[in-house]
């Protein structure tokens, strides 16, 4: 539990955040990160938590990942909450109660959850992505199409997603339009 955190937090989290920022700014691009060794989670999901979560953020952790709970508490201090109050949620796609997470308010659309979706693999194939951050179009191996298509229709409200597999991550903001390839 005490192992697997950043050894040089200021520099490692800076490098990790740039990967996360780049992923969110260029939906569909896949980035490699390093520095975390969490139990029950991918390296990339652990890196995102170490970079974004702290005592002021509330998390929702999918039940199958409960072995990561003590590690998250020790390394970030984040509190755990119901999905309705979560700022960050982590889980496999079919374990995430997507409809229950906050999508922001019309006057504060930023008060919405960011979901970290654990994936078996991440490739630049599958559903077609268009929108801000994407020059023409991109492809990403999303777990499905319809939920993300619906999410984009709620703009400026909506959820934002990171997808993690091993030491790699990609992102999908609410602005991205998703169609079946």
């Amino acid at each position: 539990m005490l192992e697997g955190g950043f050894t040089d937090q200021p520099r490692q989290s800076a490098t990790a955040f740039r990967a996360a920022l780049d992923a969110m700014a260029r939906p569909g691009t896949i980035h490699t990160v390093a520095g975390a060794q969490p139990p029950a989670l991918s390296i990339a999901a652990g890196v995102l938590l170490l970079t974004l979560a702290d005592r002021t953020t509330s998390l929702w952790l999918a039940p199958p990942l409960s072995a990561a709970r003590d590690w998250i508490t020790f390394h970030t201090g984040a509190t755990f909450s119901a999905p309705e109050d979560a700022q960050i949620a982590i889980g496999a796609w079919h374990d995430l109660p997507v409809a229950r997470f906050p999508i922001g308010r019309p006057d504060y659309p930023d008060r919405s959850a960011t979901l970290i979706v654990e994936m078996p693999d991440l490739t630049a194939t599958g559903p077609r992505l268009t929108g801000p951050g994407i020059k023409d179009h991109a492809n990403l191996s999303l777990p499905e199409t319809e939920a993300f298509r619906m999410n984009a229709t709620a703009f400026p409200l909506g959820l934002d997603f990171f997808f993690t597999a091993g030491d790699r991550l990609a992102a999908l903001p609410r602005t991205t339009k998703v169609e079946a390839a």
Partner: protein
Amino acid sequence: MNAPQKNTTEYNFAYLDEDTKRMIRRALLKAVAIPGYQVPFASREMPMPYGWGTGGVQVTAACLTPDDVLKVIDQGADDTTNAVSIRKFFQRTADVDVTERTADATIIQTRHRIPEAALTEGQILVFQVPIPEPLRFLEPRETETRKMHELEEYGLMHVKLYEDIAKHGQIATAYAYPVKVEGRYVMDPSPIPKFDNPKLSDNPALMLFGAGREQRIYALPPHTKVASLDFEDHPFEASKANHNCDICGAGDTYLDEVITDDRGSRMFVCSDTDHCRTRQEA
């Protein structure tokens, strides 16, 4: 003044503490996800006064990595007080490499200009913003402007531009010219000259905006559609002084007018010092 000390270990990397950087980083991700929307953030006091780019400095500090090459400009110039002091600040607190060449930079912090040289994928442009709310001078109450953004109620802005035309025969707004982002949020592009407005749209670089005193962060992801507000019969025009640069001869750059004596002599020179020097060297 002493030369910047390298590896000043009394400070955390890039000055800010890790809690503050995480808070800013969460705001930045939401800003990127909602282009043009102003995300509130808990702006910190910085070791420089408001108006000197405290918002931009905090955004840069939250984005900076040890491998970055930083460029800082003030009205296009690398060698003015604001640019020099911010560059030294990050040399001292983050030990990053710095450059004056736009093409070599990975992060460019800017006050009131977008460089003339085309930006590329992977570059980040950080704007220093004094008043982030484009509707603020039309409606002073934050509660009201927030409601106006929520309801996409931007009629007041068009009335203001119309009054410009009624009074001056044209839209007289020359800088901080309001834009609409992806057909949704009206945004203040910071006090860049409207000459720079077309570069906001479909730019390959990521653009981040930080307002320290007003505690707002907003963003334009790469390849985002950004339209300057206008009317069908008074289309937007990116204007500049009707001259060529008196040093490098460029006819397509934004120019500063420089008074050279007390008898009315003047010259026009590129506001982007790096662009002008690159042209002279070529």
